[in-house]
């Protein structure tokens, strides 16, 4: 798969099969199902960021007419164990249980403490006010550096740091330390002509999906239940709910509704077990939907970080040593993305001597969840910034310094394996040759460039492909479609079967209608679920060949599949007409019955995806406002199945990265109460903030996928943080190593530089 291949359907841009329902408002999202007799659930949340729960009294709420059920942590039968949670997010089942509904303690403001279900949402809100909770308030720790001090209040007094030797005797808020080493960093720094060391700070930021979490749960009296939910993985939601409620998984049907964005944040349950328990208690279907404020306060943002970076570089640009130390806010429970942050940070480069240490630290903030390339934006912001500063000091072009050190096929990745074919050098070359890079920097502006990297994952997927009696095709798969993946599945099926895209439709099956599939996450869907779809189509081809052989009276191996038809192999003496899939379908009753293919797999060989972004920005020195004049995103997709949706991932990731670089941050008061829990004050980019985002898709095929797919979803958010920071540095002459580069921070930095 090293050569460019001409495909008939792959690489085209047809309209997605689920599109019409989404532009007309028919598509059903998590909060859209309406069931007869349905009631509405709401959650009571902690007013304290750190407190013991002395008692919860639900009785007055239950007395309010129209209230059908109420519950607190004591009502949850399951979920007390140290079993690790699957999927993209860290932590244990016990932590997940307490994050769904607190037991004896709350560790962040907004943590769920109790819930009610009532006839109307308004009535449910009234009932919440009647729940009596007695707290014993504890001191709060919010800053990750303060949390590591010996005197810091402990969130979990049993927490002994993992990953350090000797094992500490005293508990602390540091859950674990992840370390990767190679060579001798001290010696490496000795060899360098230039050594820089800097501090970097990245704020806690939210995924900011537009659809708040929502679900509808309906339990029956026999112990079975159906749950409609907005999720990146309904199989994992089923497993978590079954464990938390002690229910038989076979009795649970989870239906993935359309999902209004997730970016990692909808890989973990919040509402579903609560809604189902309320439904069990009330005997009625229960709808739950979070307010935007609840989404900000109580669902997973990603970690804010404090770290230091050190780099040693020779005059020719060769990196001799690099070191990163970075503390990640886990929030109230363990599970910051410290592993991938450490594994990713040096991956674009060949560095002989490095050390990276990342820490998972408890603070009284919401429990973090996966957010697009979890951990990499923070760690790579540090290294892509310090590398840029080194390039400036040495007078080397930022692309050239990266080319000098670029990883390529055969390079040993910092996390162990040797890279197979990868496309980092190709991305750098594409940047160098890009007209926007060759164009002069606009007068008064600054240009910044940075690279990104993400591993991508495979994991488990299932697909069934059914051929209808007229030869049209239904693909059933288990990956919620978060950004056009049904279209990609149809394109891969069309290419494999050799039939028109329009004759294929893909559906996302519920947990009782298709085989297990892991979350839509890790940039895995087009790669892994796509691989399952291709294999299921190949299963159909094998069956068709066998049926044609029987029809023609030849051996199976004397039949070939060519452009959607069974044909006799060259030289086979059979006076027969080629049989199309439609012909085979029409004759199915006589050749063995309906034609269906299936594949279930644990996809191996996910291909890393590299990116290079560059941008020109203008900074108003009086107001500190940064205007992004242009932005170019270049990324290796392996193979773009539907290029418009690949560009969409690149553009959307760029916008999120730009927002994080310039505006987005969680702001807390001293008591740990988030001060900007709404879209007015937590300002994500709006249309007037951004220019068009130019995309160039590089295609260095992944040899492990039948069509060369690498996966593209996560890499795009990484490079913008440092690209914007580097551009601001070049526009102003001042390096600001703390994000976001908001107007007050820029004005303060320019003032300080002016005085100095």
């Amino acid at each position, binding site marked *: 798969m090293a050569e460019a291949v001409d495909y008939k359907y792959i690489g085209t*841009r047809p*309209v*997605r099969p*689920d*599109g*019409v329902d*989404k*532009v*007309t*408002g*028919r*598509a*059903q*999202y998590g*909060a*859209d199902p*309406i069931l007869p007799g349905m009631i509405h659930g709401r959650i009571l949340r902690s007013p304290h960021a750190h407190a013991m729960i002395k008692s919860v009294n639900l009785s007055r709420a239950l007395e309010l007419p129209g209230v059908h059920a109420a519950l607190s942590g004591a009502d949850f039968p399951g979920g007390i164990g140290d079993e690790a949670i699957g999927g993209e997010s860290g932590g244990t089942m016990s932590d997940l249980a307490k994050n769904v509904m607190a037991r004896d303690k709350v560790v962040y403001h907004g943590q769920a403490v109790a819930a009610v279900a009532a006839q*109307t*949402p*308004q009535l449910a809100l009234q009932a919440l006010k009647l729940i009596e909770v007695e707290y014993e308030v504890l001191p709060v720790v919010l800053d990750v550096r303060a949390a590591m001090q010996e005197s810091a209040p402990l969130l979990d007094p049993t927490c002994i740091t993992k990953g350090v030797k000797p094992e500490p005797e005293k508990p602390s808020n540091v859950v674990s330390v992840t370390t990767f080493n190679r060579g001798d960093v001290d010696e490496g720094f000795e060899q360098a002509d230039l050594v820089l060391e800097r501090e970097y700070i990245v704020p806690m930021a939210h995924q*900011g*999906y*537009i*659809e*708040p979490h929502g679900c509808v749960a309906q339990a029956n009296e026999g112990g079975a239940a159906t749950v409609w939910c907005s999720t990146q993985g309904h199989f994992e939601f089923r497993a978590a709910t079954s464990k938390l409620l002690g229910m038989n998984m076979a009795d649970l049907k989870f239906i993935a509704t*359309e*999902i*209004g*964005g*997730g*970016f990692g944040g909808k890989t973990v349950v919040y509402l579903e077990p609560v809604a189902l328990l309320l439904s069990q208690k009330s005997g009625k279907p229960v709808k739950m*939907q979070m*307010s*935007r404020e609840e989404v900000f306060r109580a669902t997973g943002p990603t970690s804010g970080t404090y770290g230091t970076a050190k780099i040693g570089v020779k005059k020719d640009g060769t990196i001799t040593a690099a070191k990163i130390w970075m503390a990640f806010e886990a929030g109230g429970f363990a599970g910051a993305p410290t592993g991938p942050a450490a594994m990713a940070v040096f991956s674009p480069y060949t560095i002989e001597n490095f050390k990276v240490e990342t820490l998972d630290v408890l603070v009284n903030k919401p429990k973090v969840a996966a957010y697009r390339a979890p951990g990499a934006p923070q760690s790579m912001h540090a290294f892509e910034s310090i590398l840029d500063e080194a390039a400036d000091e040495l007078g080397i072009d930022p692309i050239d310094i990266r080319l000098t050190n670029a990883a390529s096929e055969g390079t040993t990745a910092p996390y162990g394996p040797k890279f197979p074919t990868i496309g980092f050098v190709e991305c750098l070359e594409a940047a160098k040759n890009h007209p926007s890079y060759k164009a002069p920097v606009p007068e008064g502006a600054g240009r910044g460039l940075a690279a990104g990297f993400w591993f991508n994952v495979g994991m488990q997927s299932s697909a069934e492909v059914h051929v209808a009696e007229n030869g049209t095709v239904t693909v059933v798969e288990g990956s919620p479609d*978060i*950004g*056009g993946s049904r279209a990609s599945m149809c394109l891969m099926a069309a290419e494999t079967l050799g039939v028109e895209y329009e004759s294929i439709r893909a559906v996302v099956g519920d947990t009782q209608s298709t085989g297990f599939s892991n979350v839509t996450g890790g940039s895995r869907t087009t790669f892994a679920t796509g691989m399952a779809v291709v294999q299921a189509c190949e299963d159909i081809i094998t069956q068709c060949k066998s049926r044609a052989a029987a029809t023609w009276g030849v051996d199976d191996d004397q039949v070939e599949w060519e452009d959607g038809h069974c044909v006799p192999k060259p030289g086979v003496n059979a006076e027969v007409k080629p049989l199309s899939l439609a012909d085979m379908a029409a004759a199915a009753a006589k050749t063995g019955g309906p034609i269906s293919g299936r594949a279930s797999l644990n996809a191996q060989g996910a291909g890393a995806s590299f990116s290079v972004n560059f941008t020109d920005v203008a900074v108003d020195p009086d107001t500190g406002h940064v205007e992004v004049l242009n932005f170019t995103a270049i990324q290796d997709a392996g193979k773009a199945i*539907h290029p*418009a*949706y690949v*560009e*969409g991932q690149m*553009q*959307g*990731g*760029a*916008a*999120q990265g730009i927002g994080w670089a310039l505006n987005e941050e969680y702001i807390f008061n001293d008591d740990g109460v988030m001060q900007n829990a*709404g*879209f*007015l004050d937590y300002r*994500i*980019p*709006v*249309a*007037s*903030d*951004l220019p*068009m*985002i130019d995309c160039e898709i590089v295609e260095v095929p992944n040899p492990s996928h039948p069509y060369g797919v690498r996966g593209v979803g996560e890499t795009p958010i990484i490079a913008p943080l440092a690209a914007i920071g580097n551009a601001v540095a070049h526009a102003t002459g001042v390096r600001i190593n703390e994000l976001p580069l908001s107007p007050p921070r820029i004005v303060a930095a320019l003032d300080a530089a002016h005085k100095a």
Partner: protein
Amino acid sequence: MSKVHVATQINGEVHEFLCEPEETLLQTLRDTLGMTGTKEGCGTGDCGACSVMLDGALVCSCLVLGVETSGKEIETIEGVAGEDGLHVLQQKFLEHAALQCGVCTPGFIIAAKALLEKNPDPTETEIRYWLAGNLCRCTGYDKIIRAVQDAAVTLRA
């Protein structure tokens, strides 16, 4: 407090319903009338996902009370496609892949339609500022802007 009787026109048809006095138009549409095409993203007028037309004005339905719509005309996403099929904007959103998750799309289409009815030939900047009240977290807006530009060209022809 008892419910209030409201009669209003929605997408050209008269609807009568009972409404809690504190209920927002968004709640009325979604919960009382089952018209879930209008989406809730924030409930505070910051995201535009619940955009509807009220007597010809573009509003966030989460900032209007259901009782306020008595005797008025409302247009929602459910009324945008007509007997001739999809509206040009809907078609262009599909062709340009201007939606990923799609939850902001109904609001964008209502808002963009209001823009093009008022200004058939907007500049890119005018489109970006008009749509600045509609949040999208998936697309980076690029393909949305292009879809609206293309729809404007088709509608002018």
